[in-house]
């Protein structure tokens, strides 16, 4: 199967990245998913999805789940005549209706594959309505046949948020953090350092923002971009409101983090040297431990919150060997990390992401020690592969993010770590039970006992087994993908 795949040295354009099979399972998420996800962060932003019943249904459903029943999504479903003759007049009527009946401050119009295929110029229609309606109109295209995944949907939606902003007089020692999508910015080292230095973090975009708050975003002196999908928004804010930005995206590069903190120190005139040295010292210890443990270990890159090549290169600096890198889509900013990997004499296979079924057939052939990303832990355990999931590392910024990644590897935090914590006595009972199970294979026992935390659901299933009962039925359930999570 791998004979169809290209190695890193053969990858020049995105088309050179082949899927391991023609029939993919489950395939990547589409940009609509990314757009709806991003829009749902802004509490009073209304969204109109235009497309087939299927696309609009899934868009609505996803927003409904995300907002626990209080979503802001409307649907405009194309019918046969709209596909043949276009939908301009009806779209105008729907926008007028939303304005007249609901009076939203802003509406993000999301177009899907069919709208793009029939060539309806929604951007021009909305542009011509900007004088007619008082709500602000944003447009996001999410045609999946023109791009690789949901990432472009996130990027395009974030970029459009600049249209909600209004020119403000800039206030000194005030910054925005762009691209942080989680609760708890206050707990990050970046936030704490800035606050201690008297720099106010005015806003975290897109987390917990309203349209009114976004209007005032240009009052900050600097934008700190911590996630690549927010870079275009930062560029738009620079063009439109003259706010500079610093690229603080996590690429697991200690020197870059150090340089970024020095830049902030210079920009706002506060000392950073002691902070940097203390953090580096702490990190050096963890990195040394990781190098000792991981040298020569092969890995498959599945998916993480980081860029696939930058993450893989980071693992190589710890002495690991990349066997397969799964890539969502090739982007220009990947080139530097790709070159860095190649310079280290590594030439892994680079294949298209989100196609687990054929990859599983390669585990026994490639024999990786580690798998980084979402996959059934039971399938991996059958092949003696250690799973590491780094989703939680995206909630950290700077040195602490690198430290969190290293800790996740050293503590072998698999997909189960994303789930809730169980009580210690329950954990002890599960471990005790595992040791008493006579028909559980030895390697599996070892793997489970090595887990920092055995998830509650799996624990319940294990406790329900008789000591001489086979674990195969439980494994079957997990193999069917129930633990796979989102790709």
């Amino acid at each position, binding site marked *: 199967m791998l004979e169809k795949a290209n190695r890193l040295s053969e990858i020049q354009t995105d088309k050179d990245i082949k899927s391991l099979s023609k*029939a993919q*399972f489950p395939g990547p998420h589409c940009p609509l998913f990314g757009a709806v996800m991003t829009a749902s962060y802004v509490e009073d932003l209304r969204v109109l999805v235009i497309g*087939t019943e299927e696309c609009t249904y*899934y868009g609505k459903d996803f927003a409904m789940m995300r907002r626990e029943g209080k979503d802001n999504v409307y*649907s405009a479903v194309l019918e046969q005549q709209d596909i043949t003759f276009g939908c301009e007049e009806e779209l105008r009527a*729907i926008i007028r*209706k939303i304005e007249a009946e609901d009076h939203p401050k802003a509406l993000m119009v999301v177009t899907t594959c069919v709208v793009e295929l029939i060539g309806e110029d929604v951007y021009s229609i909305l542009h011509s309505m900007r004088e007619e309606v008082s709500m602000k109109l944003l447009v996001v295209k999410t045609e999946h046949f*023109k791009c690789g995944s949901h990432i472009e949907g996130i990027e395009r939606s974030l970029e459009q948020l600049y249209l909600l902003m209004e020119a403000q007089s800039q206030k000194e020692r005030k910054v925005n953090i762009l691209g942080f999508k989680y609760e708890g910015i206050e707990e990050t080292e970046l936030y704490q350092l800035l606050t201690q230095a008297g720099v106010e973090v005015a806003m975290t975009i897109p987390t917990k923002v309203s349209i009114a708050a976004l209007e005032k975003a240009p009052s900050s002196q600097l934008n700190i971009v911590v996630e690549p999908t927010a870079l275009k928004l930062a560029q738009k804010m620079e063009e439109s409101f003259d706010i500079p930005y610093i690229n603080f995206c996590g690429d697991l590069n200690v020197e870059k983090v150090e340089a970024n903190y020095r830049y902030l120190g210079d920009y706002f005139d506060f000392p950073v040297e002691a902070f940097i040295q203390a953090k580096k010292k702490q990190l050096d210890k963890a990195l040394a431990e990781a190098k000792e443990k991981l040298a020569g270990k092969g890995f498959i890159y599945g998916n993480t919150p980081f860029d696939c090549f930058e993450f893989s290169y980071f693992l190589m600096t710890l002495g690991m060997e990349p066997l397969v890198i799964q890539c969502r889509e090739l982007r220009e900013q990947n080139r530097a990390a790709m070159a860095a990997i190649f310079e280290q004499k590594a030439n892994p296979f680079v294949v298209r992401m989100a196609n687990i*079924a054929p990859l599983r057939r390669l585990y026994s052939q490639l024999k990786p020690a580690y798998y980084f990303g979402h996959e059934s832990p039971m399938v991996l355990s059958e092949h003696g592969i250690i799973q590491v999931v780094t989703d939680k590392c995206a909630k950290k910024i700077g040195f602490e993010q690198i430290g969190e990644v290293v800790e996740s590897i050293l503590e072998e935090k698999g997909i189960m770590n994303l789930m809730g914590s169980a009580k210690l006595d329950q954990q002890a009972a599960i471990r005790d039970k595992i040791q008493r199970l006579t028909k559980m294979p030895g390697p599996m026992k070892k793997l489970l006992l090595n887990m920092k935390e055995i998830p509650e659901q799996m624990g319940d299933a294990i406790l329900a087994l008789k000591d001489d009962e086979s674990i195969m039925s439980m494994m079957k359930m997990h193999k069917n993908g129930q633990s796979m999570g989102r790709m």
Partner: protein
Amino acid sequence: MKFYRDYPKPSDRMGCLWAVNGIQDACILEFGPAGTTHFSIEGLMQFGEDIQTKTFTTHMDETDVTFGNEERLVEGILEIDQVEKPKVLFVMGSSLTSIIGMDIESIVKSLEDQVNCQLIVLPNCDFRKDFRQGIQETLQILVKEIVVPTEIKRPRFNILGLGLHDFNHPSDLKEIQRLMQLHFGMVLGTTFTLNTSLEAIEKAGESQVNLVLGEEGLLAAEMLEKDFGQPFVYGKPYGVEQTDKWLKELAQVLGLDYQGDKEASEHQRIRMEEKMLMRQIKNLKNKKVYLHEGFGPLPALKHYLDYLGFQWAETADQAVLRFDNGVEARGHLNAIQVSHPSFNQKKAYPYTPMVGYRGAYYLCQEMYNRL
């Protein structure tokens, strides 16, 4: 263009996929952008079933769409046949292949000699039909392409028109099975389609009768009657009276002697609960009930609520009691969930039917607790 504030009605394509996903050993290949496949796989989890069906996508890029390139479909079919070795591969287009006019039927036909599996093309997306029509057409295809002609008849029944999308299907299926075993000594042949297999559908012709619980099963039942001489009974039995009638009609169709409920004491008890509820409703100042039809009409349930003495509210706010989807039921104490969509509530317990005698028992209790 149709405008919705609430959920849009699921499409025919979604109905086709839901119907095939009720067959555990089925294999599906979608020819279209990957995003809808990913969404549909995750969407099925909402129905609370352990789906075993394998659904693949070819994905499509701009070049495929611009030039009508069929290569991904051809290679995908050949690969699945070789690697997965399915008995049947269901092939499905997408909105894009439909608009650009790709002739999937012809492409698939040209591959028939190159594969070991049976290839079945599911209906094309036409931007007009809803999910019920998608299910309806898929069930007819299953009857036409999978069911094997037979002279054998066994004491079995098939169920049509109860699918993954029906909110209470695990419990309703169990209650129908219980009633059929208790009153007629018959066991389930196959469902069209819930947790079934290709082999069970092949043998559908051996059953003596078909029970059509939803309108989407009606045309397939007519085909089974015409082709295999299987009679059918159409209707979903809500409440004691409707269940009595339903069983009598079944007995008549089967030519069996039906002596009434064999568990008379339970029957009596449920009848009493129903009567008590009807008295309670009669004394209510506000008798208005709201039925959110969500995925589609629920005529049999509507009929039962009429029978109990409720009046109809135009909006949910006017109602003393509401029958709703999972999203609304989650936030309202006076709501009983009868349809999807749902949040991720666990629904593994299969003993809370809404149909049949025990369904009446359960529903009366739930209504009483909310009034």
